[in-house]
């Protein structure tokens, strides 16, 4: 029988639980109320829910305890928060849900949310998005910063939330379902280029951790590990998790975008008046 205690949060965060509950409730409500022809299919719904639950799981279960006291588990946590979870959420194309809620927003609420829209558009500039994506990984893994983040509860939560939000922004930019021909969504070529470019620094960082002779992250030494494991093994596994899976996700992302680009090739015709605009 599975241990129920594992599902209880290690560091209870009401804000986190509330956010996840709101997202799932908002998604579920929209799903039930929206026009059937716009409703996402079951595969997409499951993909979305799995993505959300994965992120919730690494933040508000016993998993979080192990992430705080084992470097490699911490890398696994960030792999989910910054890569796999947002990857699935973006891939599930929650655009109809956004539209559903956007239509129901009053004008006051819309004007209140406008500044968020501005920030969003700035952050979704391709160069900024790519630099931010890699920059955050480097920032939080910079040894003195990492040490502080693991010591301070506030910084720790800031770190995890910043990774999750940036992950969502980045993968949404990559998997935005709107066609770049018809809308201002980022072109497929640029998306592929960004995915390839962000993989390189992550591979370098991961390899550096793997091949470091000394202890790069001694905070796990100082604060005690969750179970006795050789520090070298912990660091090696953590480095591998920083190195290989993110690179693989870039490759998978590129393949998915290529597939879409090939699928759309010649099917979507540019409206005549816009033709030549991009050439």
């Amino acid at each position: 029988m599975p241990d129920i205690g594992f599902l209880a949060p290690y560091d209870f965060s009401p804000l986190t639980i509330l956010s996840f509950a709101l997202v799932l409730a908002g998604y579920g409500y929209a799903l039930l109320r929206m026009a059937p022809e716009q409703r996402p299919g079951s595969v997409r719904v499951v993909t979305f829910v799995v993505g959300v639950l994965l992120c919730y799981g690494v933040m508000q279960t016993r998993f979080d305890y192990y992430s705080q006291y084992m470097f490699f588990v911490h890398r696994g946590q960030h792999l989910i928060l910054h890569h796999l979870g947002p990857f699935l959420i973006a891939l599930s194309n929650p655009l109809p849900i956004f539209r559903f809620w956007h239509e129901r927003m009053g004008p006051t609420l819309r004007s209140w949310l406008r500044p968020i829209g501005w920030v969003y558009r700035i952050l979704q500039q391709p160069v900024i998005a790519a630099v931010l994506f890699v920059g955050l990984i480097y920032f939080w893994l910079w040894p003195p910063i990492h040490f502080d983040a693991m010591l301070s509860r506030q910084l720790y939560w800031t770190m995890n939330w910043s990774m999750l939000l940036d992950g969502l922004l980045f993968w949404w930019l990559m998997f935005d379902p709107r066609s770049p021909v018809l809308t201002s969504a980022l072109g497929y070529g640029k998306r592929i280029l960004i995915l390839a470019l962000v993989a390189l620094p992550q591979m370098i960082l991961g390899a550096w951790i793997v091949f470091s002779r000394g202890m790069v992250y001694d905070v796990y030494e100082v604060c005690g590990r969750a179970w006795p494991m050789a520090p070298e093994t912990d660091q090696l596994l953590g480095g591998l998790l920083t190195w290989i899976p993110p690179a693989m996700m870039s490759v998978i992302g590129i393949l998915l975008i290529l597939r879409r680009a090939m699928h759309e090739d010649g099917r979507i015709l540019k409206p005549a008046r816009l033709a030549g605009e991009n050439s």
Partner: protein
Amino acid sequence: MTRPLLPLILAFSVLALTGCFEDEEQWHAKDISGLMPELEFELIGTGGQTVTPEDSAGNIRLLYFGFTSCPDVCPTTLTDLRKAVNQLPEDYRDDVTTLFVSVDPERDTPERLASYANFFGDHVVGLTAAEPELRDLTKRYRTTFGYDEPDADGNYNVSHSSAVYVFDRSGKARLLLRPGLTTQQVSEDLAHLVSESRS
């Protein structure tokens, strides 16, 4: 679009960097001011009485988690701390209290804890509590402990933090003594901390 952000990023990096350099100049140990909550606990002393930070209020407190059956790390750390405190000017020594919190309440009876703490000096206070309270306290200071499987004789190893948390007179978290500091460095930091708040 990127232009207005650049000066901000630059200013932020410069601020962050100067912050780092200042810290390194002032302390040998890791400065944890503002990173950790202030000293707060309710533990059981060697006489069976309840002990809180109030009992050592006004002193510099050195908080250390360990267990008395600890083969090497705990005795070494406590010996080093005693040496560092003994290197302080004489009238400073009474201002430093070492709080040794045993995370092995099963084996560390009050008597055992008392003789162990006394061995390392007059200003070492042996403390412990039931495991849930210890879990709460270690979580507060973002550390943990764990037990190995007992061997045939019932002996088991305990994993615990190897760092010493230093709190100032008002109970604010100030420094983290990581293994690897020399006695001289620890002593200088403690002297610095004692003298900065002397009335």
